[in-house]
């Protein structure tokens, strides 16, 4: 391995050839500020257009300043990172950005979480020496994502996520010069585009240019309406990240505190989406086994692999890009929608509340869930199964509004019956989790034998594309896993070409799965945070006494009292769906 020697701020440093000045400096404790740059290690996500010019440094002998994020260290370089020339340039560049940025930090949705705001503070900017015209674009609202493009600073992070990572291709730079901005082609609205609402653009946006459609106000109104019974469900990945919003270390599990907070906010019943995840396994697992058995029996009409359908962004992705494959994914609705459907039928009957007086709120790590709940097929006579889907971040706002000191809350338990879940339900929150949960149940049903081990390490990890073969008592079952839609696209193209070796594939749109969802607390480019959340999810699974969905007693009861059996007519009606050609 070739090494290079250089000097940064009078300190000698030796790094591998190919290392950027930024990384070399960081290795000796010199923290060069960056703005557009973003790198999520282990995930192959990197954005370094060299556009913002905040990270410029002085290189001896070089005519102009060099961007540290995308200039490689070379032998003998002498670098200064804070000469007056550099500091003046860096401050001027940030002042220029601020001169074309709405000065509405006090009321911006990103206030306190804004990389630009932090940068201005970091550099001690107290006056903007340049005034002039500001970019004016109309706001674009969609069911999930709000674009306030006046706040775009052309960092291109969203573009990297949308194009390189997700291969959705909705967001890209348009126009030239001062009018250049990131937007869908022809400045069309997001809801007219092929946007999947995965929210990865929102997850990485440094400013308030991309944020979620805020529904906290509507939830507060429902909570204060005496005629309404308001139930809430919480997705698995929320409990592994919510604590970050209250200053707790990443990876802190806050399940009990979250339940307590929701109760204090006035929700009448605090339930768990994990319950619906167990239900999903029964439905989807049965579907998998049926298709598998028929396939193995030589039925030519059966198509494999079966694809998971829990992720609404993924569903919209294949409806746009692979409509000819729409018969392949499982017809099972997502856990959020299964929950809403059961809550507004089975549970509403149980407590004697009319459907229209029952409000279902979900807390999701996801922005696409907002869109999913608005899909017309998930409502009855105009009344949606899920009324409002809030992000993890929105829940944190609600908790703040409720004057609740989160960290000191006691741990409380979910309500019964829709709050009981197994370890299989909770791992839905990470890449590999849905398929592992399915395998735990399918194995026992298929073989009629108890699992020799519950943990399937071979299905876990952070690689974008993974595969494993699970031995179903002599029958090898090939499983594929993809997270990130770009990776999903590769598997779908294989299926299209007839080259897929898999029986079942799990797909999650967001890198890392739901733990890295677009509605989660901002990770600010720190991939370690995602890994810590993942570990938290698996530890919650470990700590559950029941870890297989089909052993959830409340699920058994639900089938006995209401649904009959998986894939029954009632199940089909309430728990399954169909897909549309949106190409």
């Amino acid at each position, binding site marked *: 391995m070739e090494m290079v020697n250089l000097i940064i701020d009078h300190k000698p440093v030796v790094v591998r050839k190919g290392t950027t000045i930024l990384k070399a400096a960081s290795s000796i404790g010199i923290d060069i500020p960056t703005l557009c740059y973003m790198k999520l290690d282990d995930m192959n996500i990197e954005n370094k*257009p*060299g*556009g*913002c*010019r*905040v990270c*410029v440094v002085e290189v001896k002998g070089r005519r*102009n*300043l060099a*961007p540290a994020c*995308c*200039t*490689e260290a070379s032998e003998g370089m002498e670098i200064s990172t804070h000469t007056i*020339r550099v500091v*003046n*340039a860096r401050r*001027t*560049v940030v002042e*220029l*950005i601020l*001169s*074309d940025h709405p000065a509405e930090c006090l009321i911006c949705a990103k206030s306190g979480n804004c990389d630009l705001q932090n940068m201005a503070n970091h550099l001690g900017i107290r006056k903007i*020496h*340049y*005034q*002039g*015209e500001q970019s004016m674009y109309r706001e674009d609202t969609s069911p999930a994502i709000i674009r306030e493009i006046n706040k775009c*600073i*052309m960092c291109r992070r969203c573009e990297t996520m949308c194009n390189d990572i997700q291969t959705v291709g909705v967001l*890209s*730079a348009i*126009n*030239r*010069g*001062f*009018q*250049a*901005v990131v937007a869908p082609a022809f400045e069309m609205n997001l809801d007219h585009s092929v946007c999947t609402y995965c929210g990865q653009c929102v997850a990485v946006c440094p400013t308030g240019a991309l944020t979620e459609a805020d529904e906290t106000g509507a939830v507060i109104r429902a909570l204060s309406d005496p005629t309404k019974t308001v139930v809430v469900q919480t997705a698995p990945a929320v409990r592994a990240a919510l604590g970050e919003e209250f200053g707790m270390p990443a990876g802190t599990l806050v399940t009990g505190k979250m339940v307590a907070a929701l109760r204090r906010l006035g929700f009448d019943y605090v339930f768990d989406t994990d319950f619906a995840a167990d239900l999903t396994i029964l439905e989807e697992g049965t579907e998998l086994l049926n298709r598998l058995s028929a396939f193995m029996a030589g039925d030519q009409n059966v198509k494999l692999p079966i694809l998971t359908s829990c992720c609404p962004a993924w569903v919209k992705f294949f409806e746009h890009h692979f409509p000819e494959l729409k018969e392949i994914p499982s017809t099972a609705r997502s856990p959020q929608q299964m929950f809403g459907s059961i809550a507004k039928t089975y549970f509403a009957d149980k407590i004697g509340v009319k459907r229209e007086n029952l409000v279902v709120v979900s807390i999701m790590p996801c922005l696409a869930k907002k869109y999913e709940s608005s899909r017309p097929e998930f409502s009855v006579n105009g009344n949606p199964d899920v009324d409002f889907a809030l992000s993890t971040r929105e829940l944190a706002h609600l908790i703040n509004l409720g004057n609740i000191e989160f960290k000191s809350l006691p741990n409380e338990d979910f309500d019964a019956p829709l709050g009981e879940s197994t370890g299989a339900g909770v791992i839905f929150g990470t890449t590999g989790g849905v398929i592992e949960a399915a395998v735990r149940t399918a194995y026992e049903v298929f073989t009629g034998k108890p699992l020799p081990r519950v943990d399937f390490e071979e299905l876990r990890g952070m690689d974008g594309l993974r595969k494993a073969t699970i031995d179903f008592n002599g029958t090898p079952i090939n499983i594929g896993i993809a997270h990130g839609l770009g990776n999903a696209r590769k598997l779908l193209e294989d299926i299209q070409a007839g080259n897929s070796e898999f029986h079942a594939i799990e797909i999650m749109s967001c890198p890392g799965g739901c733990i890295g969802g677009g509605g989660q607390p901002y990770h600010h480019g720190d991939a370690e945070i995602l890994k810590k959340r993942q570990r938290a999810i698996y530890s919650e699974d470990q700590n559950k006494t029941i870890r297989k969905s089909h052993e959830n007693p409340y699920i058994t009861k639900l089938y006995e009292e209401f649904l009959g059996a998986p894939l029954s007519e009632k199940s089909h009606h309430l728990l399954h769906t169909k897909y549309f050609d949106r190409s």
Partner: protein
Amino acid sequence: MAEYNMHILVCGGTGCKASQSELIKTNFKNKLNEYGLADEIQVIMTGCFGFCEKGPIVKILPDNTFYTQVAPEDVTEIVDEHIIKGRKVERLLYLNPETKERIGDSKGINFYKKQIRIALRNCGFINPENIEEYIGRDGYSALGTCLSEKTPDEAIRMIKDSGLRGRGGGGFSTGLKWELTRKSISDQKYVVCNADEGDPGAFMDRSILEGDPHSVLEAMAICGYCIGADKGLVYIRAEYPLAIERLKIAIRQAREYGLLGDDILGTGFNFDVEIRYGAGAFVCGEETALIHSMEGLRGEPTVKPPFPAEKGYNGKPTNVNNVETFANIPVIINKGSEWFASIGTEKSKGTKVFALAGKINNVGLIEVPMGITLREIIYDIGGGIKDGHEFKAVQTGGPSGGCLTKSFLDTPIDYDNLVAAGSMMGSGGMIVLDDSDCMVAIAKFYLEFTLEESCGKCTPCRIGNKRLYEILEKITEGNGELEDLNRLRLLSNVIKDTSLCGLGQTSPNPVLSTLDNFHDEYLAHVTSHKCLAGQCKALVNYSIDADKCTGCTLCFRNCPVGAISGEKRSTHYIDQSLCIKCGVCFEKCKFDSVLIA
């Protein structure tokens, strides 16, 4: 050309074409047909002669007669008098403005006297749509020499020794660039010709492609042989339809003659050329942006390294050269690097084509040896300043360049001297300014161009140039303050220091060079709120000098807003509240009685 005993060359450059040179050619053909002379006298539409000021140009060989400003209806007289009777049509010959003599032979015209034509050697001589005419003037012999007698390393050595530097503006050693691309190891390499000429007023690349497209194709093939590429791409802006048309014809003919395609001249060397169209974005002249545009991506630059020589088109090693650079290559191979290196200065060899424009008598395209002075260009070739005005500055290097004053008139022009003087070679735009030009307004004009042509990727270029422009706007509107001059300089320096690509790194040059060289003019704008050149309307008032006004009513009759009143034969007045400062009264007045203050 041998079988004809006379040739009529009609300029087919874009300028002359716009003045009906196509019809002139048709008229000649019809007239010759009428006289049954079509077999003896050939009519050729050539590329640009360069002397655009006097176009349309018609040249008659072998006697070198140079007719200027020919109209279609002049053809009959030229044929009847010159062709039939052997008497030159005096009134169409070039008139020497000093001696008032008519000059029959183009060699006697000052405009051409100091020029040395290498890149433009065939422009105005051959029919660009006929490969045989190119071959007749040693065309494709350099390619033949390379393929049969020289190794790629030997050929690259020749280019390096010649001292040829990139004519697109960068001035990087062409031979070294080839060598670097040659050294990159890859299964596929590309030769790219940058024909995305974007400087306002520059049209040398267009003229070469319109007048001598084969010279570029031949050079690209030589480059392909040298670096190990079998594919060439010409990136040309779609708004050059004539150049594209002639290039297409040239590629087709070269393929028919086996000079492009597989197994060229039986040597086993394969090379072919394709055309890629650009949408006319200035920034796509930057090589990484150009490559991204060819790849179907947004035309914006990326950070170098990696250089195209390592990772270019489709991620493969790519050599990008400008049209004019390529046009020099075959001559260097044919005449030798020593011959080429004997022309020019120590570090800038050969010639440079300049597009001469602005307040100068002889607007046009010229090719001069490096080391010539601005004075020679402006006064000897350019014929001096128009309408007896005084020379004020010359803007070189296009929007990235700077303005040079009188004190630089005797500086030998080459890459390094221009940079030292605060400007640059650029692609060779040369715009002459006189005392009626306001330097603040000129800086604003150029900045407006870069502002529109910035890709918007990096902050300093996207927002910094906008703010620079706004400060200049403030100054020209009479609202400038002393502090603004300081701010202009500070911001300009940061933009130069921090921008991603050459566009932003040079965009403040017009501001800085005018600030340096015409500081008084800026000061007058911000302190006494005066525009000495009378160009900044907000700072100018028109009035009528009662002593000089004869009451001729000419201003009164021409004022578009009725701001002028006065009786016939008595003094006229301008109502300042109505005046829109269009300047028509000033232009119309025959008695210099309209004052600007």
